[in-house]
């Protein structure tokens, strides 16, 4: 770092103070937001931090003019945050920022129009990011990480400020999405329910009024929640919405949406084109899809095992595992087609031992009782139309459409 003189440090700090008070006076949201984005590592903020660490007595500067001191409650802790951030003290940086944020919120509430909304977004974003880093530092030092939870509480306060009739209410969805990110990270997704209820049922909110970017993010997270609840039609609707309205150049986001949308589509019997998987690098689904097409149970199980950790982490494992039934259906259909070719008059009767043999050929060892059970489940869930005759150990298939397609509906539970 180049040598920074006291004089230069003094100048830079004063410059920041001026920019801050000017931004508020001229209701310049774009400028204000830049003055608060700690983690952006912008050259001006970094040099501010350096200046603060050299000068050491910024509070005196703040107090020397009413222009600055009226925001002292916000700026003083913000300065402390920058100093700690610069020296790598993430826990202290978080604490200081939290203080600044708590002072910022009532000021924001008092400002009449929504001019400072972008700046509020930055505060919401930064508090989450700094909390995550503080928690990492705590965990590293063997302590229990609870700052992210605290950030969540602050954001609920922000939500409360935005949930009113005025123009500021369009900011509520952004804050909701920040909350989603926190709850997903903490694994406390059940907390999403209350915010969702507020957004979707409160009369002050009109979903269409919210910015597109926030709507996409919202549908992505609520879509993921539907996946967890195995509510596939709803998941399909929400994730598809997110996909359709996501910016086509934002490949990273599209990939994230597809990661969840593909298992959902597979569950309702819709297979993606190969190029889609290739374009977005979702090769982990290749074999799953092949298995579905071929009725190859062994391949499906191998694919699930190979990528087990990844699927478990993203939470789609159970969804993919349930595809087994569709794979069985496909296998039985292939047997049926072969039987039909050989002797059309007897094709609608499938002996259990033939199915056992087919599975053995796939190196899957299942005895009669187990296969009988699977067949019973397939019939029960309408993947096979017909019935099972226990005495003769024969599956009697319906003469019409014995293997109904899912037609975008999930398998009957």
């Amino acid at each position: 770092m180049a040598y920074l003189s006291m004089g230069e440090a003094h100048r830079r700090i004063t410059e920041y103070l001026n920019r801050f008070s000017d931004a508020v006076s001229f209701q310049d949201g774009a400028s204000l937001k830049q003055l608060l984005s700690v983690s952006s590592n912008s050259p001006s903020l970094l040099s501010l931090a350096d200046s603060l660490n050299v000068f050491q007595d910024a509070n005196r500067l703040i107090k020397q003019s009413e222009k600055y001191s009226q925001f002292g409650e916000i700026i003083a802790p913000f300065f402390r945050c920058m100093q700690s951030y610069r020296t790598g003290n993430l826990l202290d940086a978080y604490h200081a920022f939290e203080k600044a944020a708590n002072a910022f919120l009532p000021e924001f509430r008092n400002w009449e129009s929504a001019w400072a909304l972008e700046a509020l977004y930055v505060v919401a974003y930064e508090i989450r990011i700094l909390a995550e880093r503080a928690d990492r530092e705590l965990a590293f030092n063997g302590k229990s990480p609870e700052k992210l939870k605290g950030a969540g509480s602050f954001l609920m306060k922000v939500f409360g400020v935005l949930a009113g009739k005025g123009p500021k209410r369009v900011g509520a969805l952004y804050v909701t999405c920040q909350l989603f990110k926190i709850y997903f990270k903490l694994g406390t997704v059940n907390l999403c329910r209350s915010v969702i209820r507020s957004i979707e049922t409160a009369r002050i909110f009109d979903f269409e009024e919210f910015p597109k970017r926030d709507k996409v993010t919202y549908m992505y997270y609520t879509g993921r929640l539907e996946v967890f609840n195995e509510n596939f039609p709803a998941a399909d609707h929400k994730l598809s919405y997110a996909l359709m309205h996501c910016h086509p150049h934002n490949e990273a986001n599209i990939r994230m949406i597809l990661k969840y949308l593909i298992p959902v589509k597979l569950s309702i019997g819709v297979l993606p084109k190969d190029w889609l998987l290739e374009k977005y690098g979702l090769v982990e689904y290749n074999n799953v899809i092949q298995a579905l097409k071929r009725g190859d149970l062994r391949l499906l199980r191998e694919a699930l095992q190979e990528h087990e950790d990844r699927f478990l982490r993203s939470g789609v494992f159970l969804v993919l595992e349930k595809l087994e039934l569709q794979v069985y259906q496909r296998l039985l259909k292939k047997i049926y087609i072969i039987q039909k070719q050989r002797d059309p008059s007897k094709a609608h009767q499938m002996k259990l031992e033939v199915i056992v043999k087919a599975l053995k050929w796939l190196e899957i060892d299942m005895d009669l009782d187990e296969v009988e059970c699977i067949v019973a489940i397939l019939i029960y869930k309408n993947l096979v139309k017909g019935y099972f005759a226990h005495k003769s150990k024969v599956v009697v298939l319906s003469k019409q459409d014995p293997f109904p397609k899912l037609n975008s509906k999930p398998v009957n539970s």
Partner: protein
Amino acid sequence: MLSKSLDDSGSKAVEDFDWDALTVKGTCQEIEKRYLRLTSAPDPSTVRPEEVLEKALLMVHNSQKNYLYRCDQLKSIRQDLTVQRIQNQLTVKVYETHARLALEAGDLPEYNQCQSQLKTLYAEGIEGCHMEFAAYNLLCVILHSNNNRDLVSSMSRLNEGTKKDKAVKHALAVRAAVTSGNYVMFFRLYKEAPNLNTCLMDLYVEKMRYRAVTCMSRSYRPTIPVSYIAQVLGFSSTSDGNDEKDSDGSGLEECVEWMKAHGACLTTDNSGEMQLDTKASSSSLYMPEPEDAVAHGDANLAVNDFLTRTPFFCEVNFLALHKLESDRGESQGLGKATSRMPVDGKQRILI
């Protein structure tokens, strides 16, 4: 953790005091001691040192007395360990013993208490039956929470080594069977369950059987032999590893009773074999209310009476209610005593 150094020298500065040493060091020599919840700092003469607690644990382990007695003794041991801040292999053994007893008795709240203590103790690197309890943990999540997120996160936390353990593998296989509704697999796994995995599976048996019969009623036509259903749904009794189908027919009888209690339509065919009429049953099956379960015994029983009785089999909430009362030091008659038929068809002594 207890500190090793003890220095009572009066000339030491405040900072030099061994605060750990001020933890109570018990002197009581009683191997048998009832649980009395502490409300203030304990008198060392009522707290047992580690050597005595080891003997106490052994005593409980070998005791033939009933669950309530042993549970009470164990809570007393646990308390003595806690006030002396003893956290070592003995502590683990105590919680493991208590957890196992709780499982056998179907006392889930107590089991959960012990399991959460064990989690902390294992995390501190203390030796114990990690795998056995990892399997129980998994089964609890599978069979008790309807929450897929909890299930997926429990599964993702298993490392490679854990997944290879026999008991954990069994639990994971049970998971797969429950998720897919594969009743044949479920009851096979029930028969070959290691450790106390059966006790946890017991809590899902009723649901699984109902799912199975519902499924069968829709998919089989015209009938299924009840003997087959009894066999695949774990009603046959296999005594002591003997693989022969039960010759005394008690499994079949139990199955018939179960089916009737759930609204199944049964018929007898020409050769006298009992059959499930699947079409009729598909619209008549139902899950009975818990109160319809068979109730036995006196409605009013004194607490002291229990402590001297032989082992029994009980409903979870019954026990919880009882322990709540004994914790409060009250001795009251109990309201309702209900019982549940254990899977192997053996009638246990009921209250």
